[in-house]
């Protein structure tokens, strides 16, 4: 039986990929951001997943306005890095897990999530940047010769209004958990939710950052995700910038972890180009959640 052993949410800013590819990770501008990802790399290496289910959004790369799938799963054997206008990133081709991906499609559609199945899907920065920062080596994020495991891409439309609601995303996550559980092979799966945090890339309001809102969102993710699922589209836009809506994808990851989950680690840094960069690592289960609460209480006491 396959099982979900952890969840991770991270920003997927293209400039982070460019900083890695151009060897700029140790400059004063980028170092604080990359230093915060070393823990994620160590965590992932310790978890040794067989598969990463990576939730991201395509940024007008694989999908144009010709076809706009709300939820799409990549079922191919491999996914090439896309040319987004400046040539493809120099990173390895992503190996898919076609069998698990098809199983997810089947299970999810019969569970009433109408997934689009995709065989041809070049993957853009939204997908390759999270892999680079968590599977790269050390604070330079040195690109490995091959990614450490297979990856199943789940693409979510957050570019064309309306994107799926936060609640729909959370429920999809729960259905993913069910689907993984019913997969016969003994696989360890880690789920990624990517995008965000606060950022706006267009219009006169470009550059908007809302640290207070972002931190509240992170605070609620492990213990109180139901509250986060009630945040309406317009609140994301107003409070976190038009492109902050990407954070609904974090709720897919959270939904996949089950009722109880614990926060293991977080990192937050402003700016990554136009964006507030956030990283959070969660582990599923009541036991992990209890330990996390105890840790928080002890921390509070120590502060007094």
């Amino acid at each position, binding site marked *: 039986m396959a099982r979900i052993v952890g969840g991770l949410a991270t920003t997927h800013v*293209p*400039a982070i990929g460019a900083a890695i590819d151009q060897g700029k990770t140790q400059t004063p501008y980028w170092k604080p951001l990359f230093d915060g990802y070393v823990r994620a790399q160590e965590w992932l290496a310790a978890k040794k997943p067989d598969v990463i289910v990576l939730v991201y959004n395509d*940024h*007008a*790369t694989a999908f*144009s*306005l*010709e076809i706009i799938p709300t939820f799409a799963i990549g079922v191919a054997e491999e996914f090439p890095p*896309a*040319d*987004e*206008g*400046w*040539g493809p990133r120099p990173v390895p081709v992503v190996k898919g897990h076609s069998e698990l991906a098809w199983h997810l499609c089947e299970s999810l559609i019969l569970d009433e999530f109408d997934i689009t199945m995709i065989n041809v899907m070049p993957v853009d920065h939204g997908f390759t940047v999270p892999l680079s920062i968590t599977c790269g080596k050390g604070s330079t994020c040195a690109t490995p010769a091959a990614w450490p495991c297979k990856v199943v891409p789940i693409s979510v439309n957050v*570019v*064309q*209004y309306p994107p799926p609601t936060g609640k729909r995303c959370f429920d999809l996550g729960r259905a993913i958990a069910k689907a993984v559980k019913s997969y016969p092979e003994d696989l360890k799966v880690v789920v990624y939710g990517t995008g965000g945090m*606060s950022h*706006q*890339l*267009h*219009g*006169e*309001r*470009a*550059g*908007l*950052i*809302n*640290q*207070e*809102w972002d931190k509240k969102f992170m605070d609620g993710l492990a213990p109180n995700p139901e509250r986060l699922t009630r945040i*309406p*589209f*317009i609140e994301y*836009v*107003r*409070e976190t910038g*038009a*492109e902050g809506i990407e954070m609904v994808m974090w709720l897919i990851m959270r939904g996949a972890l089950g009722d109880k989950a614990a926060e293991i680690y977080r990192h937050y840094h*402003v*700016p990554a*180009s*136009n964006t*507030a960069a956030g990283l959070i690592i969660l582990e599923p289960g009541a036991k992990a959640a209890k330990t996390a609460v105890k840790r928080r209480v002890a921390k509070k006491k120590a502060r007094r």
Partner: protein
Amino acid sequence: MAKQADFDDVPGTYLFDRYRSRQGYHLNMFYFSLMKAANREAFLGDEQKYLDKFKLTPEQRNAVLARDWLRMIKLGGNIYYMSKLGATLGRSFQYMAGAMSGVTQEQYAEMMLKGGRSIEGNRSKKRRK
């Protein structure tokens, strides 16, 4: 359902809804075509001729030729599509963001280093007054 009035109340923001998607379809498909190296070359070689292949309105066409980034957004361009034109011209997201908000790339980068544009006073057009 969110109301159009709410969308229009967010200052300096042009949500990519059904109206803008219809208005900007050909403009965005032009941007999208620039993901192929051969098309980038063709565009840079003869912009007018390349643009003839797409059904842009005269306003959209002029905005592209004038590199009027904010105007392109107002005419139905979407930032993720528009970034392909940016990449073709060697312009980053930060450059375009600076241009759209009326400052130089340096001034914009400086604002981001100081924590970005503040949410205070930027939530609502109504509440600004």
